[in-house]
């Protein structure tokens, strides 16, 4: 019961930004007053890009939270990761469909010639791979390799944080906050790794 409730809560909270932006886009298409500013497509880019990063950072926070608080959160990690994918997909689709309207030559030029976009694209490609291998049966099928594959999330997160930092024009405060949180989460992994190795070494000595 309790588990069901918290699952419901997590899904409700996670889908809210998507529902809100969907509603605003509907208002915009209906020529009604909306919150998307005079340049709705740019607003949608920023909104979805930022929510993608937030969900990625949340996904990466699960392990540290579990270790530090003993909360049993691991079972929600996949769902939260998939929300990162959902917002990443919206960010990507907005770029392809609304912003560049399938103008492939411009899109390809952007991806190849502009490192900021290359980092975003690489991040999105990794996110797709992680999402489609996130099912239980792929996990069983891939066995040990699954864990290895899903360590891509570290590279992915670094790549999109670089993308975020490069895309803003002057005020790098928000991307720096993202980068700081990411660094803490990654350093924590290094620490875990190091202490595990020390444990092992100790045990071998004993």
């Amino acid at each position, binding site marked *: 019961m309790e588990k069901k409730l918290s699952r419901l809560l997590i899904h409700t909270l996670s889908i809210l930004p998507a529902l809100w932006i969907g509603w605003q886009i509907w208002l915009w298409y209906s020529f009604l007053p909306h919150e998307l500013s005079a340049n709705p497509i*740019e607003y949608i880019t920023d909104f979805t890009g930022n929510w993608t990063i937030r969900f990625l950072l949340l996904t990466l926070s699960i392990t540290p939270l579990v270790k530090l608080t003993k909360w049993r959160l691991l079972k929600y990690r996949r769902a939260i990761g998939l929300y990162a994918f959902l917002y990443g997909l919206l960010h990507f689709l907005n770029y392809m469909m*609304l912003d560049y309207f399938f103008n492939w030559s411009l899109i390809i030029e952007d991806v190849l010639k502009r490192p900021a976009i290359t980092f975003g694209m690489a991040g999105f490609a990794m996110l797709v791979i992680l999402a489609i291998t996130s099912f239980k049966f792929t996990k069983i099928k891939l066995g040990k390799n699954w864990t290895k594959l899903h360590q891509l999330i570290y590279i992915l997160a670094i790549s999109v944080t670089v993308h975020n930092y490069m895309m803003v024009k002057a005020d790098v405060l928000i991307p720096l906050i993202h980068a700081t949180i990411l660094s803490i989460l990654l350093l924590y992994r290094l620490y875990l790794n190091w202490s595990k190795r020390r444990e092992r070494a100790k045990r071998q000595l004993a």
Partner: protein
Amino acid sequence: MLIKIKNSWDLSEKDVTSEEDFFSRRDFVKAAGIMGVGSAVNLMTPALAGAYQAETPPSGKYNGSDIKDEQTVLSAITSYNNFYEFGIEKDDPSKNAHSLVTKPWNITVDGHCENPGEYAVEDLVNFNALEERIYRMRCVEAWSMVIPWVGVSLSQVIEKLKPSLSARYIYFETLEDVEQMPGQARNIIQWPYREGLRMDEAMHPLSIMAVGLYGRTLENQNGAPLRLVVPWKYGFKGVKSIVKISFVEEKPNTSWMRLAPQEYGFFANVNPAVSHPRWSQASERRIGDFRRRKTLMFNGYGEMVAGLYDGMDLRRNY
């Protein structure tokens, strides 16, 4: 009179417009006629009102602007601004700029000129010579607007100040006062905001000093009480809320050049062939449109301004 060209992707534009706080020039003239100018809208001087009643471009002297493009709705022009002095988000200036006090307002003029000193806005800008100029405004961020400015040629202002021959550039500064400009509490760029033009660019008849738009006094978020408009350059050249004008020999080191010299140059001419390192400048989104449109060389003013850059490599002098 406006000639409105409809593009296939513009089809819903009129609907959008009718929903918003928009009045066309024609509506404005009607309103002014019926209700008595001044009460209808926030007009600044009888002279300006007179010009509007006449329904001709107020001075008709130089009509270099292309007025066939549909004008951007007023509510977008006043709510979607890059004016970091009032915050970094596009809607921050419209929320925060009320703290700016534009009356009285003095402009310090110095450098190589015969008439340096402190000037009130009215001393620099001849309010009896105000003209309407409907210009495209292309932001370096790849969006654009069409704005009916009200102002005077910058050359008129400069002639009053009588620069000497050693003045090769004109330099401008925005107000720096964190009390009135809360965004200056953070050092996003080095305050005050600095801009400049080569003298021949400044004297070009397309360059104006604007004090209004849509027939009304400038809103603070649009750079009240006076700002520069140079329509063939990216919008950031249009320095707002000017408090200082200097005539100098050396090319000024402008704000965006200081921040990222490899991305923003002194000239900042709109050029679809020279991309920003992080995004393409080949296309733009006109605010209110759905699809992007091609960006025009010199923002469509090439015929009038290309001569200023004869023999220059515009790839290097971006």
